């Protein structure tokens, strides 16, 4: 089976990673005779028009990207250390810190007792004293036990101390829904943390995002909340030579245009970027050219890129996995209405998770989260193609 074609067109900046699984699905459909003429045409035109980096291109899972980023930063700066539950001996609850204990020893890869309030406070204290902790939460749901330290001890310290006490700390871990983990393990905290001045909040999607943003976060002198996604850990993405270099770093506060388009802007972050890209494919079939923006940085929000895109397309669909009220999408909608009102041709559309605690049953969970179809329908509504 063909591994992965990196259909990257330099001109459009469009990168459509076709994962192994997808090729498998496409292959199966071909065998079943399910291939339509149009889809075949699209694939072929994709192959012809885009420049392909075939056999030599590298791939990396998000897990390896995060692991390598932490490893490189720890080796570059002796003040960086990792702490959290199960990060050492167990190699990390999700194996993100695999191999680090062996390499750096127990002083720099610290297995903590089970008290988020305790170890977060301690991490912040270590940051006060000049170290650079990378604190792992097993999931951000557990960060609620430590939220006082994240916000009151870390985020506000530089301001309250008038610049005397800075806190170069990173709080990282999986955020948002996983698969079948229920209400108390599925909440998205992007909106909560992004509302706090003094924090920076990042949400990577691809392996390159993960590497570049985590390195930037560790090097940043301000406290950073780094929201990963459990389901993305195992996903492979193509990665450039530049991104593999140990000095690679992405700027905080800049969004990435994953796919250029001219009819409707779709903004989103984390796992939903993958869904938005699939939705954009489906929309392209129907003649709607969607521009997909991967926010990367929730705070500071790249309002300039979002607004420039909306001024180009005149329509906005904003997507997130978290609860709808007071969410990231609400902030984006407000920003666009404030700054680009006269450019809008349609009401802004918000797609978010259902306004209920996440149900456990698989069918209900699927209904409670945005799916590709929801994004497609919203885009069509914005284009006045459907009700």
């Amino acid at each position: 089976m063909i591994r992965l074609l990196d259909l990257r067109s330099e001109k459009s900046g469009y990168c459509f990673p076709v994962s192994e699984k997808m090729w498998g699905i496409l292959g199966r459909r071909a065998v079943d005779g399910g291939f339509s003429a149009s889809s075949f045409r699209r694939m072929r035109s994709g192959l012809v028009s885009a420049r392909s980096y075939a056999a030599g291109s590298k791939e990396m899972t998000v897990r390896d990207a995060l692991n390598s980023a932490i490893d490189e930063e720890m080796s570059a700066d002796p003040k960086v250390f990792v702490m959290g539950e199960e990060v050492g001996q167990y190699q990390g609850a999700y194996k993100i810190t695999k191999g680090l204990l062996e390499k750096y020893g127990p002083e720099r890869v610290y297995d903590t007792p089970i008290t988020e309030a305790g170890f977060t406070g301690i991490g912040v204290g270590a940051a006060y004293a000049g170290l650079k902790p990378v604190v792992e939460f097993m999931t951000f749901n557990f960060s609620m036990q430590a939220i006082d330290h994240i916000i009151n001890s870390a985020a506000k310290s530089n301001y309250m101390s008038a610049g005397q006490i800075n806190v170069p700390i990173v709080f990282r871990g999986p955020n948002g829904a996983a698969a079948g983990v229920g209400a108390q393990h599925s909440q998205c905290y992007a909106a909560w943390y992004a509302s706090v001045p003094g924090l920076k909040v990042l949400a990577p999607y691809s392996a390159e995002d993960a590497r570049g943003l985590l390195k930037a976060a560790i090097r940043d002198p301000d406290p950073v909340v780094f929201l990963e996604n459990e389901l993305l850990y195992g996903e492979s993405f193509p990665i450039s030579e530049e991104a593999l270099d140990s000095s690679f770093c992405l700027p905080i506060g800049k969004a990435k245009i994953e796919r250029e388009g001219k009819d409707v802007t779709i903004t989103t972050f984390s796992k939903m970027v993958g869904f938005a890209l699939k939705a954009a494919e489906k929309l392209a079939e129907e003649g709607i050219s969607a521009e997909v923006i991967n926010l990367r940085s929730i705070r500071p929000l790249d309002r300039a890129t979002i607004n420039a895109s909306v001024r180009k397309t005149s329509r906005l669909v904003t997507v997130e996995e978290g609860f709808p009220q007071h969410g990231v999408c609400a902030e984006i909608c407000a920003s666009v209405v404030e700054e680009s009102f006269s450019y809008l041709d349609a009401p802004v559309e918000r797609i978010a998770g259902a306004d209920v605690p996440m149900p456990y049953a698989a069918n209900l969970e699927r209904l409670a989260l945005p799916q590709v179809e929801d994004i497609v329908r919203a885009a069509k509504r914005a284009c006045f193609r459907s009700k």
Partner: protein
Amino acid sequence: MRLAISATTYRMVLLLRDSHQIQSLVIVTPWWIRSQVLVHTKTPIVMDFPGGKVAFTPEIHFISESNEERVPCYRVLDDNGQQLTNSQFVPVSKEIAVKMYSDMVTLQMMDNIFYEAQRQGRLSFYATAFGEEAINIASAAALSPDDVIFPQYREPGVLLWRGFTLQEFANQCFGNKSDYGKGRQMPVHYGSNKLNYFTVSATIAYSLLTQLLPNAVGAAYSLKMDEKDACAVTFFGDGGSSEGDFHAALNFAAVMEAPVLFICRNNGWAISTPTSDQFRSDGVVVKGRAYGIRSIRVDGNDALAMYSAVHEAREMAIREHRPILIEALTYRVGHHSTSDDSTRYRSADEIEWWNKARNPLSRFRTWVESNGWWSDEAESDLRSKIKKEMLEAIRVAEKTEKPNLNHMFSDVYDVPPLNLREQELLVRQAIKSHPQDYPSDVPL
């Protein structure tokens, strides 16, 4: 007497003997049965569980909720300031003793004058440390300038000892442009990087007591990793020991072997909550053992005892990489803050008694004078000098300009981001267009 016993029995006997578990051994051999060996073991045999060996006991016995006797309190001076015979303490030179006493007087006078200023409406808020001057000054005196302090809000004496001037205190209280906090915090929330004193955070005072406790442990861990000859020191009250952070911090400090001193000012009251409603343990000192931490109970109104306890604790913490818990028993003579009137929940007589009969200043003064290092004249000279300085400090602080508008937006991040720079521009434009809607005394 010769006995015939089986080989197995004999081997068992030898095993038991060699394991030192036997208290007495009786070999019974009625003629109609084989030999029996009755073994009376002195301690039951131990077994391994995760966490190590424990001995078994056949008796069902609950550890009592409290010891018969309360943990004794270490003191050096009696109620009248006379040195107790057989008292162990770290000797204090004349220079240190005089500085300690002078700073205690300065602290008391500073508190008095700022409190009055608040009552006159010149300050928005103030919290005094009346009755706890010995804890403040003596603990600071026993530490080195490299030790990092994580205060609560009743320890300005530590800053005073380290050299914070009365003017600097006044600037912070008035929130003027010379305030190191750039006017961002309420009065009493002092901080000084230079003096290794972490800015008192408002959340400690009002909603999140003891927030800095785990932070202190982290800082101590960092000092240990850097192999510095210094420790972290953190203060909290009897009420603060109920917070979750206290328990997490103590547990962690023990596990991480962090050189941190936890100093509890048990002053009997957490605003209006007396200690009987705060915990049912024998104070805070017994909680140390629960976490595997060495602890001591000290008379917090005895400057010499405080000095010695903190001095010894510091040595142990740094040399042995361990946390130490110090419970200083004292009494909060003043109100919780200027927003409180403590006569509503305790008798004025009780307050008066502690203020007069058990005053830490008079006890220490007696001892200092008994060494010929102080006199009435020195006392009155000092007091008039401080009063003059304080009034001048307040006068200057009140007159000094408030911080500049750009300080509203700086320091949120290391480098101000675009959105904040834009917001500052918007504010300035708004002030320009509508000057009558904005205070005229804020420099732009």
